[in-house]
């Protein structure tokens, strides 16, 4: 009976585990294998070449450019998202007229695929007829339409702002979950203790939200680092690779230029970076769970 009890839960998790291991595990091994071989455009492996593919990647200025932009993209979007989302979550957690409507509107970008969002923005930013130009000209902010996506620096900036916009709902959701778990009586006690609203934010909200902020940072870093559709749909990394980040560059190498060995090498490098972020995340989550468990023991 005892051995059966141990077996039953294993049997319950096994089918899903097998599928996940197969669909996620096989590609990782295949990429590792491919990255060490010479590969034809059509995917035939032509024998081991050691770390030639990696060497090629590291001597490629486009890789370094993409890497730099990936860093800028990730840091800007994540920081921008956090700075905007925390006050928004605090507002949405409070009771005010129209809160339900506000919540729905703030969460809307999450409901829509990044692809669609990017397609719509690509049209809205159209240099000749785009409605953003129309709006800004109607408001008298400018007299001539602007080609938003024709110049790399401007296009990249716009893309980062859209990146922030679409990351806000998820981040706000994490913060709302966090805020709703904060002990209400701590706020009452602090009112009696003489805290102003600012004191409450500084000494209670912020420290107690720290685990949620940490998790929001790590998750957003992972998502933003991996985000392809916005840049791909709006500029395809152009003009002249000026908005390429690692994922778009990787996609081009693999499916446009057929440089499969090099693409595999970049995939593996990214996988490594991602793994590092993930380990940070897992450690954060586990630590958090341990704290909660310790608290519940009482």
């Amino acid at each position, binding site marked *: 009976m005892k051995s059966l009890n141990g077996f039953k839960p294993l049997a319950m998790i096994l089918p899903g585990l097998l599928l996940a291991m197969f669909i996620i595990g096989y*590609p990782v091994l295949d990429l590792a294998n491919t990255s060490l071989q010479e590969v034809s455009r059509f*995917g035939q492996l032509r024998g081991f070449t050691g770390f030639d593919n990696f060497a090629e990647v590291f001597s490629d200025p486009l890789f370094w450019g993409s890497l730099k932009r990936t860093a800028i993209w990730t840091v800007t979007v994540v920081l921008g998202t956090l700075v905007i989302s925390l006050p928004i979550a605090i507002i949405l957690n*409070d009771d005010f007229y129209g809160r339900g409507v506000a919540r729905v509107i703030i969460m*809307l970008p999450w409901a*829509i695929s990044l692809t669609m969002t990017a397609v719509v*923005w690509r049209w809205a930013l159209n240099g*000749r007829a785009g409605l953003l130009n129309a709006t800004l000209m109607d408001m008298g902010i400018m007299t001539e339409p602007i080609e938003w996506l024709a110049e790399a620096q401007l296009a990249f900036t716009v893309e980062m702002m859209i990146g922030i916009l679409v990351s806000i709902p998820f981040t706000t*959701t994490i913060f709302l979950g966090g805020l709703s778990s904060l002990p209400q009586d701590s706020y009452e006690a602090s009112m009696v203790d003489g805290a102003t609203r600012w004191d409450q934010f500084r000494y209670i909200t912020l420290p107690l939200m720290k685990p*949620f902020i940490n998790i929001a940072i790590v998750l957003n870093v992972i998502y933003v680092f991996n985000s392809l559709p916005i840049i791909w749909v709006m500029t395809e990394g152009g003009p002249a690779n000026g908005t390429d980040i690692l*994922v778009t560059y990787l996609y081009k190498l693999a499916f446009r230029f057929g440089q499969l060995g090099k693409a595999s090498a970049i995939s593996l490098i990214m996988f490594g970076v991602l793994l590092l972020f993930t380990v940070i995340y897992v450690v954060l989550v586990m630590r958090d769970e341990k704290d909660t468990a310790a608290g519940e023991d009482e």
Partner: protein
Amino acid sequence: MPSKLKKSLIYWAFLSPLVVVILFPFAVMLVTAVRPRDELFVYPPRWGFSEFRWDNFAEMWVKTNFGEALFNSLYVSVLSTVLALVLSIPAAYALSRYPFPGKGAYRTFLLMTQMMSPIVLVLGLFRLMVALGMVGNLNSLVLTYAAFNMAFTIWMLQSYFSTIPRDLEEAAWIDGASHLNSLIRIFLPLAVPAMAVTAIFSFINGWNEFVLALTMIRSSDDFTLPVQIYSQVAGRYQVEWHHVMAGTVLATVPVAIVFSWLQKYLIRGMALGAVK
């Protein structure tokens, strides 16, 4: 209470820039979708237009093969959701109810796969589907979506399952129900809302996915909606923007409505520990 009114005004003033930026693309989408074709490119650009051209939707439906893409998206989203749920429900139940060897390792594995993005593995996934002879086959998407969604669905489900009191099942056992019986009669009915919510989020994930669909699907007959709409825009000299926007309206508005209705459950699920 006047102080609440004052607070509300301040809050809305603070939120309004963001609200405008969020609603802006929706306005762009709607206004373009019903605009006559020859008023797309006018100088200077303007919001106004002469008449509502509802025919754009019908034209777009025929010209862009929208119906087929809609069907493909439904097919992939529904099947991947069913597959993910069928595999996740027992796993989530096991996680929330039983101790078992390797539980900690399994939870870590789930957290890690939750973080794995298809884009990093896209080349390997493509080669896997080549090896399986499934490139160009919608079922390749069903398999990959289900696999990548499972971490999320298991987390969501187990956090809800943990809130269903164990006593209820134990009471059923004492009342003479078998484990299976109590599972079917007591547990599952209580878990239906959780499963429905999780299913809808999994569906939306599949509905919105782009990179894998772009990679695996070769023939335009098999395009899902995001890829189909993207293909109307990418690499074309002449983009029929009114059709593209009509397509995005049809593809996004229903999902946005369902999502708005359900977002509070997502917040709850996260508060319960899908993220924590």
